[in-house]
């Protein structure tokens, strides 16, 4: 299990990050005394550090330099300052990446995983490969493979994203807006019609695994994924 050390003074933000990282099976430790960050780091020996710039006592750049004297672990800065100079400063002081507030969990997780992979080898990827299982239907989010009754089917990137979101919230309604937001890609913009097309495709893929009517349309609201196949088998 990877150990992540969070150096951030906003309690709420720390709590949210902690909860979320916990879900992804990271061991998380946070700082409560900002005068002894260095010794707390030594004690905990984390694999990766999330570091804020504006801290009580000394700033993040200072602690980054201190940590660099002790370790070469990845250090990700999290800061409200989006200026180029701030980012340059962070990287010059020994940081590995820079995330600006407000940020999305996904970005933080993706960056953490990418840096862990780079720093500690590829076994990190296999360990963190995320799967969601609903009633025996397994979705491997990273490999984009859907498994049901030992049958595998490959998904496209967008299909995987849609299923990821629906299966995470199975039995609950997921709005169209949210799905659109999730599958919005830098390369191709999805409008309403495209989403319909993708939903049809997902249904077809589910059908090849002999799952039908699991993906329901809720008029005016969105979609719902229900594990209604249990008694069919």
């Amino acid at each position, binding site marked *: 299990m990877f150990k992540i050390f969070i150096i951030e003074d906003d309690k709420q933000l720390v709590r949210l990050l902690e909860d979320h990282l916990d879900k992804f099976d990271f061991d998380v430790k946070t700082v409560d005394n900002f005068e002894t960050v260095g010794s707390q780091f030594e004690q905990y020996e984390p694999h990766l550090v999330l570091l804020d710039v*504006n801290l009580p006592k000394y700033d993040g750049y200072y602690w980054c330099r201190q940590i660099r004297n002790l370790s070469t672990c990845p250090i990700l800065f999290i800061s409200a300052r989006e200026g180029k100079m701030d980012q340059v400063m962070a990287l010059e002081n020994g940081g590995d990446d820079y995330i600006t507030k407000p940020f999305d969990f996904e970005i933080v997780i993706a960056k953490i995983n990418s840096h862990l992979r780079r720093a500690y080898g590829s076994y990190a990827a296999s360990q963190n490969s995320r799967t969601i299982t609903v009633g025996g239907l397994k979705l491997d989010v990273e490999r984009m493979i859907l498994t049901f009754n030992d049958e595998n089917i490959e998904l496209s990137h967008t299909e995987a994203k849609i299923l990821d979101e629906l299966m995470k919230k199975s039995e609950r309604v997921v709005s169209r807006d949210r799905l659109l937001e999730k599958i919005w890609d830098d390369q191709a913009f999805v409008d309403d019609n495209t989403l319909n097309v993708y939903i049809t495709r997902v249904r077809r893929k589910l059908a090849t695994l002999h799952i039908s009517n699991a993906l329901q349309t809720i008029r005016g609201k969105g979609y719902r994924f229900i594990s209604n196949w249990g008694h069919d088998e």
Partner: protein
Amino acid sequence: MKLFFREQMSLIFIYFLQLFLILLVYWLDGYRNMAVSGYAAILSICLLTGYLIYRYIRNKGFYQRLANPLTSIDGLANDSQGAGSPLAEGLQQLLKAQYSHYKKGLHTYKYRLEDHIQFINQWVHQMKTPVSVIHLMIQEEDEPKFKAIGDEVDRLKKGLEMVLYSARLETFDRDFYVETLHLESTVRSVTSSQKRLFIRKRIFPSILIDVHSTIVSDEKWLSFVLTQLITNAVRYTVKENRKVYFRGYKRGKNSILEIQDEGVGIPASDISRVFDPYFTGENGRNFQESTGMGLYLARQICEKLGHQIEIESKVDHGTTVRIIF
């Protein structure tokens, strides 16, 4: 020269009056030798002329300075020529003192302004933490209530951004970095960052820009300008399933980015004033949350970056904004 004569006029007048008076007194006394009187008068006038010429030469610089209009405030104290007479010297001293007081006052205000900008910067960055906390808290939720909170958070974010950028505008010269940018990817990253806005209003961007076209600009400031323009385009498009078109093309030597919406358009009576600060116009009254600052800031920033911005609109058909790089 003119000024000199105007100033010496009274002296010359008094002098002639005096001369006339003296000659009159002698004449009334019975002294009637006009030749001697005339000789004395001419001699006296020669003396006066000599004096005037001497004065003129000595104070020539001083008068010239007074006659020439001041071009800048810095020229006031630096000029040391023309300090010939006590009067000129006194004036020079006065100006110098005045200038230093003025400079001091100016400096005080400058520092105060810088302090203020510093404060705003600090404050906005501090506010970003609570905003990101709310942002994270509602990220996993999908109920209408949380969506509404999300929209409000987006508005807060935009407001904070605007405060930050308008404060930074004052210190623009220290805060920009010009580089070659790919127009297409810059536009894409801005539209992606505004995806919630697009989706919420069911409006979608359509980017028709050559992948290889490049521009020279500052990414951060340009992104801010684009965000403002996109916000406007989306806000003033009422009907669903419309598009916002981003086109890139060349006009002569200049690259042009065109952002065209299919929204309500701007009335002809308002269009000349849309770049004025705090101007919201008819649309601003019909649509809430106009600040009147977006386009103003966009133009200010474009000017500083050396880009031109133009706007064209037809009511009920839409608005086209062009940035000329």
